[in-house]
């Protein structure tokens, strides 16, 4: 029972957390990446389509990442080189992504509806030898897919990059006061463009983590996860561990809504709103708390 709940939580959390790690980097550089949703969506389609047609999961994920990074690069170019407003560019990215995926799905696969790839390779659950058989612990720790495990590793790696390396140090300085960074010879443009690419990288994995496990793609299947990831970024306050915490809460909220759907008579439509209500509640709590701290 607890094991099931945790598994659902992690499954729900993983795509959000991947994308949120991406959003974290642009956030640190001082830009809010509204386009996470679109990047995830593009990757959800292209990774699954590639995996199904080549039979290679790895290739699928790589293509997913590349397509998402390409979108990120365009976003970076338009907002940094052409100086367009980053919010508008982000919104355009999302609209473009939802259009292009449906277009490709109908052109390549002949349907605008649900795409199910029967013979796409399985993103199998990994049973950890040794731990798997320990009574409760095995149930809790074993049996997730590779992207679930890797995301925890990614949190650690991001932490090191952000807080221990010159790259992360420079990126943070740009986000906090870019004039100060410029005065010591740091290129704001390079830092921010780089952060968009990283953002695309992680959002790409997030998209793949959405479609590959269920071998299914539906138009708009990200269903607001990019936005929730963005909230996780803000709640995480520039720290990957904080982002992890926030993502776990969202994962748990989704899992809870799934659980209630299975066990109660409450309208499933209503239950689907639970994660968003939780988001709203947390945001309100967060801003009230912050207001208190900053009270004039």
């Amino acid at each position, binding site marked *: 029972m607890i094991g099931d709940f945790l598994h659902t939580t992690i499954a729900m959390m993983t795509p959000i957390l991947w994308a949120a790690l991406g959003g974290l980097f642009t956030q640190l550089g001082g830009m809010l990446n509204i386009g996470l949703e679109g990047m995830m969506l593009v990757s959800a389609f292209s990774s699954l389509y590639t995996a199904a047609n080549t039979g290679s999961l790895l290739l699928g994920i790589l293509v997913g990442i590349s397509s998402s990074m390409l979108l990120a690069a365009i976003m970076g170019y338009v907002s940094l080189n052409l100086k367009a407003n980053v919010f508008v560019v982000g919104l355009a990215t999302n609209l473009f992504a939802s259009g292009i995926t449906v277009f490709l799905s109908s052109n390549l696969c002949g349907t605008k509806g649900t795409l199910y790839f029967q013979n796409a390779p399985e993103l199998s659950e990994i049973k950890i030898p040794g731990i798997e058989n320990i009574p409760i612990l095995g149930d809790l720790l074993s049996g997730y897919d590779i992207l679930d495990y890797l995301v925890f590793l990614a949190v650690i790696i991001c932490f*090191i990059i952000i807080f*221990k*390396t*010159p790259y992360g*140090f*420079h990126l943070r*300085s740009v986000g*906090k*006061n870019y*004039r*100060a*960074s410029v*005065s*010591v*010879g*740091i290129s704001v443009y390079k830092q921010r463009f780089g952060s968009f690419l990283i953002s695309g990288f992680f959002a790409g994995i997030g998209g793949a983590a959405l479609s590959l496990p269920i071998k299914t793609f539906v138009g708009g299947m990200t269903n607001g996860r990019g936005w929730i990831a963005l909230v996780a970024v803000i709640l995480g306050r520039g720290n990957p561990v904080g982002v992890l915490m926030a993502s776990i809460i969202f994962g748990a909220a989704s899992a809870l809504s799934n659980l209630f759907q299975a066990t109660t008579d409450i309208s499933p439509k209503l239950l689907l709103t639970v994660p968003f209500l939780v988001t709203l509640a947390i945001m309100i709590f967060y801003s009230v708390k912050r207001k208190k701290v*900053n*009270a*004039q």
Partner: protein
Amino acid sequence: MQNYILEMKNIHKIYSVNNVTALKNATLKLEKGKVHALVGENGAGKTTLMKILYGIEKMDSGEIMLRGKDVKIDNAKTAFELGIGMVHQHFKLIDDFNIAENISLGIEKKNKYGMIEFKKIQNEISDLSCKSGLDLDPCTKVGDLSIGEKQKVEILRTLYRGAEIIILDEPTSVLTEQEIQRLFNTIKMLKNQGKTIIFISHKLEEVKKISDQITVLRNGETVFTGDTARTNIEEISRLMVGENITFEKLKCTDKKGENIFSIDELYVKDMEDQYFKVKGISLNIKAGEIVGLAGVDGNGQKELIRAITGLSKIEKGSVFLNKKNISDYSTRMRREAGMSYIPKDRVMEGSSPESNILENEISTKYFKDDVSKNGWINREKSLDLTKFLIKEYDIKTPGINIMVGMLSGGNIQKVVISRELSSEPELLIACEPTWGLDIRSQKFVYDQLEKIRNEGKSIFLISGNLDEIMYLSDRILVIFDGEIVKNFDNHDDLTKMEIGKYMMGLHIEEKPEKECDNRCTESTD
């Protein structure tokens, strides 16, 4: 033939964005181990010349020779590799980072795994800060430092980067008296260690005190270079402006009218809403009277002003303007009731640097009939008004559409003052109205204040510059620890010493520790 460590010869610079000739034929020659003052009016080109030296602006022609060799400096990195460091007029520090992080930013030491060795950096900075006499704990967050300490961090940063020539652009304009004293000690120490220092300031007394040599810029041209000891202040100021400008103490008028403005038992808390910073202040200002408020920074001046202008909440007490209780009025309602306000920080608070002159001028009156009709801003009328003000106040600008942030300090202040005075206030709150201004602009501001006083308006003048307070005020109030501790009539025999005694707290033997005044720096997240 003298041996110079640095020579800048025949420097020309035209800013292409607005076609302003900032420098023509500017020359600067520095001797090693000397403090060299660079003076000139607002807009004379001092900062521009320094930015060229530091590689953040390009010159159109001219040459720079460092230790006898031609050098080309086209970015800040080259500059510091050549041993040139600059402390900007506006600090370039990151409040959320600690001192060590700020100082090492951009030149971090890495271990073999590519990780930054923060421990090692901290130790190095610790050592350097002891050795150079700039006592700083590298682990303190910069946001928690006072302005004077932030400046030390900037200086330490130039040293850490190996600077031999250190540029200080108007370092004293942000400091209190005591901090200036400490800065001078630092400068002397650096000089003894063989560093060469360029010192920019508008206050010639300071220049006289600290510098060995002086270069005077006028309209982008070097008009004088020589030993400080062999010049006097009058001569320098004449060279700067081309004429003699002197100040005379305003005569107190006796045709004072009724009370225009009064405050009754006012209590205000600090920005964090924790303690009282204004503790029961009452005061009156009559029509045609200038009342000066003297006090050491951080004794409640800021909170008092914020409460008067409607920016902070009043805990207790009331504020009256023209017999109306305006305590609950919004800032705009207060303005409509006849209050004008010249804020201390003309760039952050006083103007919108990224808007043009017209937009700034109408920002306090866009809703009034002068410039709008039925809720629409009238382009013609606002243009006329702006043109009139530019002419009337002699604002030096290439055009109306110029962003205010691109003007020189003196001209930004003229924009602010013209905006505030043109709404014909009954009461003017003037905070540090001449901060960072050259003598001519200073004179201009004084004349304007005198003019409106003689027209019967009231002025509340808050300034850290005691000379200014004594020049202008009819009465002088001294604020200490949130209370008005003394009310002086500004007689001719009133001395600075006498006022100073009250500023320091009358019966308190020891100087009170200056309170940290950087608490309310806006959070930017």
